[in-house]
Every structure is written in C-alpha cells, then in structure tokens.
C-alpha cells in the first residue's frame, strides 16, 4: 500500500512539475515580446496557441495575463478573426476569467474587433465556407 502511494505521489508530482515547467517557459517567452513587427509571425502565433492549450490544462494568472497582453499586440497589427482563433479554446473554456483579462488589456476599439471576430469564428464553425 505504501509503495503504491509513493509511486502515485511521485507520478502526480512529476506531471505537475513538467506542466509547471512548460508554463514557466511559455510565460518567459511571452514576456520577451514587447513589439510585433510582422502581420504574420508564425512563431508568435504558435506561442499563443500553445499558451491557450497549456491554460486549458492548468489555469495560471501569470501565463494568462501575458498571453492576453501579447494577443492585444498581435490583434493591433493583424485584426483578422483567425488571430482570435489562436486563443479561442481558452476563451470558451474560461469565459469569466478571460472576459475580465480581455476587457482590461484591450482598448475599446480593439475589444469591438475582438467581439466581431468571435462572431465570425462562431459563424464559420457553424456554417463553414472557409
């Protein structure tokens, strides 16, 4: 019994440690971004996707704040719906927390664009086209 308990505790802490490490790396990478140079920066896009995915697994104040800050910078440069699509899974999964963060970080004009993008994503998901 003692052995099982030890093994389970070890594996749970190993998982938490690994996820914590990912979260730390993502936060650090996001913090390093202060300016968006290109309309299409696939590295930044990927970082936003991975952050949203990590937050879906484990919510983190630090990571979510950084992710929304960078999202705001990207949206300013490229206001298209697919930019919002990058973080859409976590917007859906943590509605309340994400709403508060987005309202805090986005200017009102950008918030309007964000809301319009959400509508486009929903219509696209439901009705298709591309």
């Amino acid at each position: 019994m003692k052995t099982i308990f030890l093994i389970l505790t070890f594996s749970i802490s190993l998982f938490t440690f690994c996820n914590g490490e990912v979260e730390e790396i993502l936060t650090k990478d996001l913090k390093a971004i202060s300016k968006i140079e290109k309309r299409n920066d696939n590295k930044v896009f990927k970082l936003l996707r991975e952050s949203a995915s990590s937050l879906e697994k484990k919510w983190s104040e630090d990571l979510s704040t950084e992710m929304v800050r960078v999202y705001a910078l990207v949206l300013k440069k490229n206001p298209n719906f697919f930019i919002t699509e990058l973080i859409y899974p976590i917007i859906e999964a943590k509605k309340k927390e994400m709403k508060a963060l987005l309202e805090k970080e986005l200017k009102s004009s950008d918030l309007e664009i964000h809301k319009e993008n959400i509508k486009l994503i929903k219509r696209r998901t439901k009705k298709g086209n591309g």
Partner: protein
Amino acid sequence: MKKLTLLISIFFGVQTLALEQGISFELYHQLSFERKKDFHQALMKVMERRTLGTRFRDSIIEERLTSSVMKSWDFWISTAHADVENAEIFCNFGGWISEFDDEGECLAPWSSKVRENSVLSVYGPVYNGEFSCGGAKLFRCNPIIFGQGPRDGDGKGFCATADDRDPRDSTTACIELYEGGGDVETHINELKEDPEKLANYLGIASEVLRFCQKSFDDFPYCDQLTTNILNTSGQLVSCENRDSLLPFMPDIVTPFNLDELDSIAKGLGSKTKLYLEELRKKQIAAVEKNKEVLNEAIESYSVDPRTSATLERLRNNSKKCLIDSCKGTRHKNSKPSSKSVAFCARYVKFALFPYGEENAFGEWADYPWSTDAVESGAWLKEMGFTNLMARPEMSQLTPENAPKGAIIVYEDVSTRRYYNVDGQKRGGPGHIEIKGESDEYMSDFINDEPTRIGGLRKPIGIYIKIKPKFEEAMVEVPEL
C-alpha cells in the same frame, strides 16, 4: 496488493523503456557505459541471427561488412520492402511461411498473428477461412508448394489429416501426400504459366532454405522439404522464363535471400538486383523528365491570360463585400483588402467562375455551390486542375515557393468539423487562397504570407491547370 504494485511498476518500467527505444543513433555517444554495453550486446544478437540465417559465402559476408555494405544496404532499404525485419528467419509450416513464437516454436499459419503479418503477405495468399478443410485435425497444405491437390478435390490444395498445431506433423503429412498422390507435372506447369505464383513459390523456397539451414535438427521434415523444393525449382526457372519473373521479384527478394534465390533459380536474385537498379535509374530519369515538363507547364499557367484575369478579379473583390459577406461586421459595401470575413471559398470561386466575364477558367453556370474551402480539390479536379502536391516530382513544393496563380487548399488542424476529402478525414472548413505576387496570397482578403496561422491551417493541395500538350509530354514513372 502485491500484484497491483507489480502492475504499476511494470507500467512505469514500460514507459521508461519506450523513452529509451526512441533514442536516435546520433545520441549513442551520450549513453552511459552500461547502456552502450546493452546496446552492443543487442546488436551482436541481431548480427548472429543474421549470419545464421544466410547462406552467403564468407567472401560475400566479408564484402557486406565493409564500407560498401552501406551503399547496397541503403539501396535495398529504399527500393525493395527489405528492412531489418527481413533479417528474421521465417519458419515453414505445411508449405506456409510462418513465424516463430517466443519459445522458438513455429506458429500455425492460420493463427491471427501470422495472418496479420504484412511482411508475410508477399509470399502469396494467407491461410484464411477460404483454405479451411472444414474439420478438426485437418490441415490445408499450401497449394503453391504442394500443388492444387487431388483431381476430384476443391483445387485449393491437399487437406492432410494431421495435428494442425504441430508444424512437424502437418508438414510431414503434406510431403507424404505430395509425393504419394500429387500431380507434380501439373503443379510445375501451373507455376510456369503464372509468373506471379512462380515468384511466390521461389520466395517461399528461398525462405525454406534459410530456415532449414538454421533449424535442421529441430525440424526433421526439413531434409525432405528441401530436397523437394530443390528438385521442383530446378525445373521451374529457365533462361527463357526468367525475365518474365522480374516484375514480380522486387517484393520477394531481400538482401538476406539473394544467394538462395541465385542457387535455386539460375541467378534470379542477382538478376533482380540489377533489374531494380535499372528500374531505379529509369525512375530517376522519368522524374527528371516530368520535372522539366511540369516546370514548363507551370510557367505557361502563370502567364496564361486567364490566370492574370483571375488574380485581378480577386484583387478587386477583396476590397468589396460580396453578397452578404460582411454581415455581422462594421463593413457594409466595402472593406479593407487585408480584412478577412471568413468567406475565402466564396471569393475564390467568384474569381474562378465570374458572371458574364471573359478570360476565366470556369463559367458562372458551373459555380460549385455549398462547398467549403477544404473540399475545393473536388471541383478543381472537375475543372481540370492538377494537385502538384500529389506529384512525386514536385515534392519540394510549398505554398511559400508555389508558382504565381497556384490555388492553395488548406485543412483546419484544430476543429470539430470533419470532411471526407478523397477518402481522407480532413478538418474544416479549411482555407483556400490563390498566390499572386511572391508576397500576395489572395482570397476574401490579401495576406502577405501563406495563411498557416501558426499551424492552425495545413496545406493539402496546390493546384494549377496543366495544358494537354504538357500532360501528353509527361512519361510514366515506373514503380519500385
């Protein structure tokens, strides 16, 4: 409780092992001394097994162990189905190629493990329900090795009364039936008339020789089986019919049975090797030729007035709100050309099937309604477009280096909406765009790069229209 502890330990042990197996050879030098020793011992076991399982002469073994082995090894790996698995010795159970279990026993050919082994399928039909003799203690001898059986039988081979789990009993019974009542002459004639079946026979025969050389003492039937096979093989292959066998051999010949095939089939193993080398040269030449033709076809497509007109229409439309495309946005009749309204398929189709305009690839009457971007390949093919991504000559093609006018189709990577595209499950609705200038990817908006969106979209097709004269100039690429 102890069992549960053991199970959990095994679970973690297997995970660790899987991680270790994933290690590449490049990382070999980073292994600890103990791990290097384990690796070396495992390698020695494989080498020993391979040496035992071949009839290569010492000089050939020596040759293959020197630097030249890499070239020939690479060649075989890339051309035939040969891989490390083929170094395995397969046993023979009643004429059927089979595999050993962990205890070194030859598995029954009707067992699911053997039937589902795709490597064995190159040796002809597998022992499935079709070959059942319809009762216990009845075993179907492989008709490729022992012929189609008695004249008044079902033509699927002899049914031997034997323990169908015992390779010795079953194989001995098959040999007795073949020697006692088999129509050897008919069997030989049948094999001679069907090169594919004959190739299967020779494949099995060469594996029997390898197996029997290694396991002669454990499987007493080896003596008679080998004699029968050598006698029959000698009558099957002549200089006249040897060439007709070559197209069927690439699946059968491997670096491990080459010598056996040479000895039983008048140098057929070496001849096949040469045939494969020739075929590979022909394949390379055909690919090069087609590449040249395709490059010409691409150039011609890019300067086609219809391509230019399509791009111009798309460029103009990207500033407009086509039909109700801008509904739900701040835009009414016009929009910035950099703004997407999530109607890429509509905009691309409007450019390709314009209403009342000339210089177009399609007509308005043929407009493909109700199709999403990811499904575009179907109507593009109907219009006569070719997917360059599906051509082996164009393996280096990407949306980034695609030619002017190329139509690029993407699937969605993270989605819950799925489509059947050419029999494959694809995420949708996807995206479609046409490449204009080098930094111009146009659909319902103009992007300065291919719309990959950090991996959210994945290209599945790059289409252009190839004129018939180029299609005709292309040559068939021989398959290996």
